[in-house]
């Protein structure tokens, strides 16, 4: 949502590092290598990878569907199994009550309680359905910038890691000060470094 249709929220990154000469071959290889892998039929807790911006089930990218002019358009998909702490606590207490009754004891030792909690958590996670989140991006190969269509900080951190892993390139968020370093001349940048907040009243 956002990049392809409707209103969008986004932030800008600079892409730092060198790409090999055969850029499109390299990208084709890396995108498929780091494509999203489904976890619906596994017990994995989460999965992160690239999918097509038009279809989150497309991880084949036929005919380099991610290419649009000099841009690479991709979606980062994250599937996560989550169980709320209230549900975990409910089943932990239930189990503890059963054990107390069965063993005729008043209190369960701490080590055993930790074990119970871990096993309940794992069991519930396996039963939980993986919830998908999809975040779009658009990478401008000409000027090495990238627009990421989310202002969610966790998603941005995941993107930085996945991008580095996939392409060996570093993303640097273009906050105002960093933008300023790109917009100004060398001597001006030194002056920018020196300014301090002013009072407007």
């Amino acid at each position: 949502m956002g990049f392809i249709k409707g209103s969008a929220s986004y932030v800008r990154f600079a892409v730092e590092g060198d790409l090999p000469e055969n850029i499109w071959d390299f990208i084709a290889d890396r995108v498929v290598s780091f494509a999203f892998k489904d976890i619906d039929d596994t017990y994995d807790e989460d999965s992160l990878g690239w999918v097509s911006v038009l279809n989150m089930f497309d991880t084949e990218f036929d005919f380099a569907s991610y290419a649009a002019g000099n841009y690479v358009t991709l979606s980062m998909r994250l599937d996560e199994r989550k169980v709320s702490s209230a549900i975990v606590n409910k089943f932990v207490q239930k189990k503890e009550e059963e054990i107390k009754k069965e063993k005729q004891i008043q209190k369960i030792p701490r080590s055993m309680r930790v074990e119970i909690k871990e096993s309940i958590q794992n069991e519930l996670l396996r039963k939980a359905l993986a919830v998908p989140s999809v975040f779009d991006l658009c990478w401008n190969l000409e000027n090495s910038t990238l627009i990421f269509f989310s202002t969610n900080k966790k998603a941005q951190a995941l993107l930085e890691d996945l991008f580095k892993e996939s392409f060996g390139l570093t993303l640097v968020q273009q906050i105002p000060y960093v933008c300023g370093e790109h917009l100004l001349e060398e001597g001006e940048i030194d002056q920018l470094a020196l300014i301090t907040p002013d009072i407007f009243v």
Partner: protein
Amino acid sequence: MDLVDLIAEKRFIGQEFLTWLWWKSEERGGVVELPGEGDIVVVFEKHMLLEYGEGDSNESLICRGLQTELQEARTGLVMGKKLEQARIQLVYNDYEWNFTMAAALMEFRNVKLPKTGGETGNENDPEAREGMVLERIFLFEELIRLMLDLFRIFLQIRIGNEWRDELVKIRQWVGKAERV
């Protein structure tokens, strides 16, 4: 300095820029001149968020109103609060964007793109789809370009000798809110 420190220490730059842009647009009734490009319409509307303090003592103030009726927001400036978010209408050539700028990190939020004729193409035709995608990318990037052009103008004034005079004018404008 790493990015985390830069974000904390330099967040005032984006906030000062947004405040300056608000003043700059009101100075000429919602129009700002971009050298080499001519006038563009920049109107601050409906929604603003001001911040005061840092870290745990951070407070915010949300103001809603229509254009210059944002008196409460200007009073916030008088109290030393800084403009962190504003809903802006930007018109350049025949394009009109509506978006919220979050100043400290320069985030573009809830961006409504200009209406163009190319939105009704056949989505199943790969070429039409690529054309639609490229058009949207152009419009997203064009908004960034215009905002960065405005930001460059601000920075050049901010680091130069002109800033003292500009600051006097901004203070007078903020001061008007006090007297209303």
